[in-house]
């Protein structure tokens, strides 16, 4: 068998894979049907959803500018800030939030599905609060345990509701988890100047060094003095600063509470213990974020898109894309007949490859991104048109169709290359310097242009060769 038939089989397999991957419903329905009829167990095709941007599915996007004028280590301050805000957004119950540091001092918070911009801003707006808490006295702990017992009793009783629990005095202890056993001291993040990871000189184990300012040093000395051999818990926004029970999330069940060994004066303390480098680093980072005097203030830019507006935009652009596609296919078939038809098949494969890539990478699809993709769809045919026009020219010179096809492809290449590379060049520049709207557009423009070059040059040309065979076509009018 000739090489071109292998390529043809390759194209069919590729078309099947990308087509099914971008829209697996038909395949999966078919599989369900077969499975039920023949009691087989064929698995479903991988069903990965598209990731839609805020402008298409609705949500709130906020941009903050942090005041870093008093901070020395800017990047660690920003990543600390990001961690804290990410946790707050997660507590808010937002699905798939994106919290990103942008540039040096910007923080972008994207919350899909959120509609109340006011509430979102209030929740994010507070500066993270770091507090050092000491263990409650024995009577207090007994009291807490007693309350917790009462709550548990009601919970296990049948037919009880949240109302019954709320009747118990101080029932909120049940929500506080570990922090119910601690009470805040006067010491908080305001007094901490720096936390860093150091290594023990003999054991090389990581330790966390805390430095307090002079006021903080006095408070710290007093607190450690009255809490010798007792735990001193560190909370950030009311939660433990790290995951201590190993379930990979920080919740009320966690409490990070090193034991005080001795009264510490001079404002410098070291937390020792068996911890990994990573744990030590993340503790130090969060201590720093709580200690941050970083203010973020009100957002410098905000955007809220209601869910209806988003879905309308998406639907409209898809309809526009569909009619555009029909338009080009008609144009190609009318002007270029059979080659135009083959190019239309290639353009449909091109769409499926693109959609698959968007799912696979994954690309967050925005309105701008869809525009970039649809525009490239029009541009992708340029390469075909250039090749077909060349073939016409070669035919005019009296060459046979087989030779004309080969020469036409070769001669058209420099124009195709230059044409696509200039578009890609501008796309890359847009991506590097642009804002988020521009980036979304530029990214899909560049990807789709590359794919377009591939489908026009490889797929269309092989389809032409295979349909043509090695002999002159019978109905030449169909081919020119």
């Amino acid at each position, binding site marked *: 068998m000739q090489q071109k038939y292998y390529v043809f089989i390759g194209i069919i397999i590729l078309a099947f894979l990308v087509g099914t991957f971008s829209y697996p419903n038909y395949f999966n329905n078919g599989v369900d049907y077969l499975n039920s009829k023949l009691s087989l167990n064929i698995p479903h095709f991988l069903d990965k959803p598209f990731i839609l941007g805020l402008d298409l599915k609705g949500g709130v996007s906020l941009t903050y*500018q942090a005041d870093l004028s008093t901070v020395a280590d800017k990047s660690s301050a920003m990543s600390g800030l990001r961690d804290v805000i990410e946790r707050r957004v997660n507590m808010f119950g937002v699905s798939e939030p994106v919290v990103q540091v942008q540039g040096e001092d910007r923080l972008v918070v994207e919350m899909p599905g959120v509609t109340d*911009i*006011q509430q979102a801003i209030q929740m994010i707006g507070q500066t993270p609060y770091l507090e050092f808490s000491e263990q409650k006295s024995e009577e207090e702990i007994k009291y807490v345990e007693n309350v917790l017992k009462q709550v548990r009793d009601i919970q296990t009783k049948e037919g009880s509701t949240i109302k019954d629990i709320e009747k118990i005095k101080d029932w909120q202890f049940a929500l506080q988890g570990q922090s119910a056993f601690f009470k805040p001291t006067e010491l908080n993040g305001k007094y901490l100047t720096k936390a860093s990871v150091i290594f023990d000189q003999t054991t090389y184990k990581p330790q966390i060094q805390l430095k307090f300012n002079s006021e903080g040093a006095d408070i710290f000395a007093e607190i450690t003095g009255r809490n010798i051999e007792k735990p001193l818990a560190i909370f950030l926004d009311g939660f433990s600063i790290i995951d201590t029970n190993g379930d990979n999330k920080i919740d009320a069940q966690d409490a990070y509470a090193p034991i005080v060994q001795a009264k510490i004066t001079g404002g410098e303390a070291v937390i020792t213990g068996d911890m990994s480098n990573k744990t030590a680093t993340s503790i130090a980072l969060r201590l720093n974020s709580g200690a941050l005097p970083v203010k973020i203030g*009100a*957002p*410098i*830019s*905000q*955007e*809220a*898109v*209601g869910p*209806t*507006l988003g879905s309308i*935009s998406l639907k*409209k*652009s898809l*309809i*526009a*894309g569909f*009619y*555009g596609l029909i*338009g*080009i296919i008609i*144009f*190609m078939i009318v*002007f270029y007949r059979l080659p135009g038809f083959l190019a239309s098949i290639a353009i449909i494969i091109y769409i499926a490859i693109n959609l698959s890539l968007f799912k696979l990478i994954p690309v967050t699809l925005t*309105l*701008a991104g*869809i*525009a970039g993709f*649809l*525009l490239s*769809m*029009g*541009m992708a*045919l*340029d390469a075909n*048109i*250039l090749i077909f*026009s060349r073939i016409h020219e070669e035919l005019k010179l009296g060459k046979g169709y087989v030779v004309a096809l080969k020469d036409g492809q070769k001669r058209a290449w*420099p*124009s195709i290359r*230059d*044409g696509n*590379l*200039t*578009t*890609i*060049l*501008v796309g890359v*520049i*847009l991506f590097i*310097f642009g*804002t988020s*709207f*521009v980036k979304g*557009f*530029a990214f899909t*423009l560049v990807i789709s242009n590359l794919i377009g070059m591939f489908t026009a040059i490889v797929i269309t040309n092989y389809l032409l060769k295979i349909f043509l065979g090695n002999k002159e076509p019978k109905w030449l009018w169909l081919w020119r």
Partner: protein
Amino acid sequence: MNIPFLKFTKIYYIFSSILLAIALFSIFYFGLNLGVDFLGGSVLEIEFENRPENSVLQEKISSFDLGEYTIQPVGEKGVVLKMKEINLEVHQNIISKLNEVSPVKELGFEDVGPVISRELKGKTIVLVAVSLIGLLLYIMISFRKVSRPVSGFVLGVVSIITLTFDVLITIGFFAIIGKFYNAQFGIPIVTALLTIIGYTINDKVIIFDRLRENIIRRSSDDFKELVNRSINETLLRSLSTGFCTLLVLISLVIFGGETLKYFSLALIVGIVAGTYSSLFIASPLLVSWQKLRLKKR
């Protein structure tokens, strides 16, 4: 087919100059109707159950300090309200005030602070400059082997001149529809302008490519004749490549949403201007430049 394109060079120059003059006049006289992304400010998009008259809305919000604001009806029930930057409180108050007229649903809200808008202006200028320089370099490198009778550098400069023409025409067009149809000149339009630069250069490249080939194949021919022949040989494909892209864009203008509508319209104007300028400006310029050089000798 051999259309004597270069016979009427003077007419093209005059016509192009008139077009350019209209564009420049519109830009400077009307100014650009800049969007919030450049000016800073807030945009509130709402939908009423029963949309009241603009004058009723005006009266309702007249108690707020909104700077220079515009009320623009959209579709059957929607209204877009553009104003200076407002805080959360004012935002909520406006909604509750408008609720008194007819139940209001908030569709979207956008607020751009002065820091961002100032930064965008700077970035846009850098973007345009970097793109033009990048393309100049690309053409020079791609056509470096062409030295006689025009060098790659000249081809590059001619391309940049025509690209500038394409961009100015599009900006001028937006100055006019900004004035009369309240179309905003924002980030999407800037993105479109840069895409125009990257795309319409293709037409020029196609003609130059053919010219390069013809120079090698028929070194003795008259230069003007070579350019004319190159245009004629590539005319059909220049038109059809642009046409395919236009089909998609026209579909976006007709069926697409508000943002993509103007974005696509900008691209359409730019691509049409680009096809025109490669035929009627780029090619005549090459010939004129060659003539000038011969005279100097």
